[in-house]
């Protein structure tokens, strides 16, 4: 779900753009402080466009507001020896069969199939998190 507003790129439309954006942020449940920070960031971008983007009057700005989908997160915790899988050299997948060692592909495959891998050591635990983002059609893209 996303909404859009398109107006001429002039300072006179600043408030209307910002109202549109803060309403969207409030609906998504951001706290007032965060909404204010988001508003400031949006103002900075808009004022720059108003001031610098067009050499002649008549230019427009479109603002699209919405959210992306939540990611799936899978977190693995163990209290084994400290091991950061991200510190491993990736295997040489261009090597021919005779130069291939047995093993060493597991972490590499996991990395290829997930959108993100994060590792941290916390107290005496290894915490590894995999994240997968659904690629939905109806969302605002970056």
């Amino acid at each position, binding site marked *: 779900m996303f909404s859009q507003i398109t107006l001429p790129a002039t300072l006179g439309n*600043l408030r209307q753009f910002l109202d549109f954006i803060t309403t969207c942020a409030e609906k998504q449940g951001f706290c007032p402080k965060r909404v204010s920070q988001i508003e400031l960031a949006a103002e*900075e971008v808009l*004022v720059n466009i108003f001031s610098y983007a067009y050499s002649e009057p008549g230019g427009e700005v479109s603002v699209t507001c919405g959210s992306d989908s939540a990611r799936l997160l899978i977190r693995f915790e163990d209290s084994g020896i400290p091991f950061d899988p991200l510190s491993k050299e990736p295997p040489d997948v261009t090597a021919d069969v005779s130069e291939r060692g047995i093993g060493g592909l597991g972490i590499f495959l996991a990395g290829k199939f997930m959108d993100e891998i994060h590792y941290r050591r916390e107290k005496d635990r290894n915490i590894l998190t995999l994240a997968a983002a659904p690629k939905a059609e109806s969302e605002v893209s970056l």
Partner: protein
Amino acid sequence: MELNSRKEGDAVVVSVKGRVDALTAPDFEKYLSEQADKSEKSLVVNMKELYYISSAGLRAVLGATKKLKEKRGDMMLAEVQETVREVFEIAGFNKFLKIFDTEKSALEQI
């Protein structure tokens, strides 16, 4: 945005209420500049009821600070709300602005 001022000894105390954004900043800038001229030395800006400031507002404050500097005066802020204070801090303005918890403590420093 609402602006007020009064004289207090060598200083001028300005209070600004509401929002300073790109729309209101030009008036704020002009007002601050005039008050900086009027002041013998320093300017205290009470921000108790200022809820929002963006880079356009920072520019106004910077301009007035430079002006005061010429007559060896200071820009002093008092009763700055958390969100507004954060903007000043991120921009590194706390390096050359004095920020006070109360207007009174600002005036005592002059």
